[in-house]
C-alpha cells in the first residue's frame, strides 16, 4: 500500500489488522506526506518525537484504531509528551498521567504521534495567541487555521494524521475544522471525559474530534465516549450508538433558519449552505424553514461566563506546584504575581482580568449572574427550535479563513468570529462542522449541524449525506471520497 498518509483511519487500521501494513509504517505515514516539507511553515505541532512514536507503535493495542496516528491538542495530558497549553507558564511540563480520552485512544490501538499547537490555554480563534508561534492554514499559508485547535485541524487537513483531538469551549474544534476543510465534532456536554483536559471554562469545555471522513469521526467517538468515574460532570447513561452513521437521513427534518445568514455571512458560505440543503433533500431529508435568533446575546453571555470560569481555573498557575517560576521573588505573593505576569500571554491576562471583574463584588449581579440567566434563555431557544426539527443546518463561521494579523489587535472582532459556534457550548448540545468543498479563491467552505442533547447519531448521518453529496442510495456503504489535500501557496 503506497501513500498511506492519504488513507482514512479505518482504512489504515484495516490495513494493519490484515497484515498489509505494519503499525510502525502506519504511525510514520503522515510524516512522509506533505508534512515532511511543510511542517516547518505550517507549524501544526508543538511536540513530536520519533522515539515516542516508535515505542507507542511497539505497544499499540489491537482495536478499531490499531496503528492510527493521532495528534492530540496540547491541553490534553500525555505522559509521553510535554503538555504546555501553548503557554510559557507550562513550558516543558510533563503530566504524571494520561487524560482519559488519551488512555481510551491508546486502548483502541491508536498512537499519539504529536501534540497540536493551540491558542494559549485555548483562548483564541486563530492559533495566533500560541506562545510558541502561530499555526498557518495549509490551504493558504498567509491565513489562519482558526482556533483554538488550529494545530490539530491543520494536521488533519494536510495529511499528517487522519484524526486529531481538540477541545471546544466556544467553537475551538468546529471553527478551525471549518477553516481547514475537515470535520469537527463537539459532542454533547458530559459525553467525553475531561479528566486530564486542562480546564478553561468548566461549564462549557468539551473534548472534540477532528477528521477528514465521517466514518473516522464516528469510530473515534465510539472509542472515547461514555461514563468516566474521574469526571463528575459525565452523564451516567451509555453514550448514544453512532454505528449507524451510514444509514441515511430519510425522514429527518433539518431546520433552515435563513434569517441567520441574511446579513453579514460570506456569500460563498451561503452557497455552501444551499448546496448542503440540496444534498440532504436529495438523500430524503425534509427542510423546515423557520426564524431563529440564537447567539444574538450569545457572544456577550459567552465572554462573561467563559472568562469568569477561566479566571477561577487559571488561579492554579502560581509558580508553586508546576510550570514556570519567576526567579526573583522574596515573598510568596510576589512569587505568584511575577510568575503569572511573566508566564501568561496578553490575551490570557486580558481574559483573566475580564473574568475577575465580572465576578468581583459589586459587579457579580450585573455581569456574571445576568450572563447565567441569559444562558437559560439561550438554552430555551434551542429547545424550542428542536421541537420543530431534528437538527439545524447553519453557518459554522461568518467568514472564510482570515489573514494572519487581521484581528489580533481587536479582541472584540476576534470574539465575534465565534458567533455561530458558542450557542452549542452555552446550551450543552452537540455540533458538527462539515466541509463543503472550496471557495472560488480555493479556501475551505463549511457548514454546521446542531442537534439536541445526544443527537450525535443524527448529526453524523446528516454529515455523511453531505459527504456523499446526497448520493446515499447509489454509493456502496464503504465509499470514501478521495482525500484532496491542499496545494502549497
Amino acid at each position, binding site marked *: 500500500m503506497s501513500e498511506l498518509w492519504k488513507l482514512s483511519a479505518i482504512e489504515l487500521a484495516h490495513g494493519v489488522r490484515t497484515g498489509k501494513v505494519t503499525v510502525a509504517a502506519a504511525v510514520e505515514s503522515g510524516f512522509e506526506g506533505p508534512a515532511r516539507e511543510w511542517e516547518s511553515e505550517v507549524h501544526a505541532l508543538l511536540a513530536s518525537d520519533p522515539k515516542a512514536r516508535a515505542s507507542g507503535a511497539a505497544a499499540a493495542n489491537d482495536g478499531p484504531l490499531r496503528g492510527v496516528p493521532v495528534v492530540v491538542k496540547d491541553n490534553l495530558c500525555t505522559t509521553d509528551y510535554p503538555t504546555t497549553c501553548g503557554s510559557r507558564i507550562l513550558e516543558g511540563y510533563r503530566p504524571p498521567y494520561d487524560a482519559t480520552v488519551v488512555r481510551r485512544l491508546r486502548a483502541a490501538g491508536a498512537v499519539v504521534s504529536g501534540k497540536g499547537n493551540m491558542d494559549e490555554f485555548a483562548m483564541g480563534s486563530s492559533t495566533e495567541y500560541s506562545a510558541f508561534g502561530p499555526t498557518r492554514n495549509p490551504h493558504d499559508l498567509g491565513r489562519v487555521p482558526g482556533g483554538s485547535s488550529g494545530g490539530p485541524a491543520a494536521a488533519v487537513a494536510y495529511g499528517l494524521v487522519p484524526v486529531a483531538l481538540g477541545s471546544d469551549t466556544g467553537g475551538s474544534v468546529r471553527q478551525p475544522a471549518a477553516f481547514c476543510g475537515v470535520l469537527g465534532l463537539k459532542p454533547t456536554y458530559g459525553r467525553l471525559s475531561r479528566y486530564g483536559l486542562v480546564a478553561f471554562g468548566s461549564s462549557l469545555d468539551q473534548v472534540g474530534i477532528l477528521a477528514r471522513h465521517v466514518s473516522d469521526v464516528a469510530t473515534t467517538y465510539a472509542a472515547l465516549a461514555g461514563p468516566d468515574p474521574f469526571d463528575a460532570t459525565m452523564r451516567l447513561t451509555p453514550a448514544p450508538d453512532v454505528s449507524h452513521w451510514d444509514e441515511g437521513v430519510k425522514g429527518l427534518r433539518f431546520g433552515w433558519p435563513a434569517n441567520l445568514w441574511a446579513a453579514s455571512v460570506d456569500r460563498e458560505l451561503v452557497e455552501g449552505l444551499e448546496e448542503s440543503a440540496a444534498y440532504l433533500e436529495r438523500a430524503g431529508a425534509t427542510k423546515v424553514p423557520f426564524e431563529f435568533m440564537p447567539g444574538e446575546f450569545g457572544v*456577550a453571555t459567552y465572554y462573561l461566563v467563559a472568562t469568569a470560569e477561566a479566571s477561577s481555573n487559571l488561579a492554579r498557575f502560581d509558580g508553586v506546584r508546576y510550570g514556570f517560576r519567576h526567579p526573583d521573588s522574596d515573598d510568596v505573593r510576589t512569587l505568584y504575581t511575577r510568575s503569572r505576569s511573566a508566564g501568561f500571554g496578553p490575551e490570557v491576562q486580558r481574559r483573566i482580568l475580564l473574568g475577575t471583574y465580572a465576578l468581583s463584588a459589586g459587579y457579580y449581579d450585573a455581569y456574571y449572574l445576568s450572563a447565567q440567566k441569559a444562558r437559560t434563555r439561550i438554552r430555551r431557544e434551542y429547545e424550542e427550535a428542536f421541537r420543530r426539527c431534528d437538527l439545524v443546518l447553519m453557518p459554522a463561521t461568518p467568514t472564510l479563513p482570515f489573514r494572519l494579523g487581521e484581528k489580533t489587535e481587536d479582541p472584540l472582532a476576534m470574539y465575534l468570529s465565534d458567533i455561530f459556534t458558542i450557542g452549542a457550548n452555552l446550551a450543552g448540545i452537540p455540533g458538527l462542522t462539515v466541509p463543503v468543498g472550496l471557495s472560488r479563491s480555493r479556501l475551505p467552505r463549511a457548514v454546521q449541524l446542531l442537534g439536541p442533547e445526544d443527537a450525535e447519531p443524527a448529526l453524523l448521518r446528516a454529515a455523511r449525506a453531505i459527504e456523499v453529496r446526497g448520493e446515499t442510495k447509489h454509493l456502496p456503504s464503504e465509499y470514501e471520497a478521495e482525500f484532496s489535500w491542499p496545494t502549497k501557496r
Partner: protein
Amino acid sequence: MSIDRDEVARIAELARLEIPAGQVELLAAQLSQVLDFAAQLHRLDLRGCEPTAFAPAAAPLRDDQPDGRRLGAERALAAAPEGEGGFFLVPPIVENVNP
C-alpha cells in the same frame, strides 16, 4: 468607558497580575469595549430565567471512598519548580514567628 485605570489596578491585584504602567491605558480601553458590548444583556428581560450554572441537571456523586490510586510524593513533586524532602518549596510566608 466602564473601566478606568484605577479599576484595572484593582482587578489586577485581585488576579495576582502585574500590569506594566505603559499598558494600563490600552487594557482599560480593551476591557471597556468588551464590557460595553456585554452590557446589552442588561436590556434583556430575564424574569423567570433561573441561572444556568451547568448544562446537565445533576452531577453524579461517587461513594466517599478512596479509589486506591496513589500518585506518590515523588511523581507529584516531579514538575515542581522547587521542592525539598517531599514538600513544595516557596519563599517565606511568615517571618519572625519567634523573634
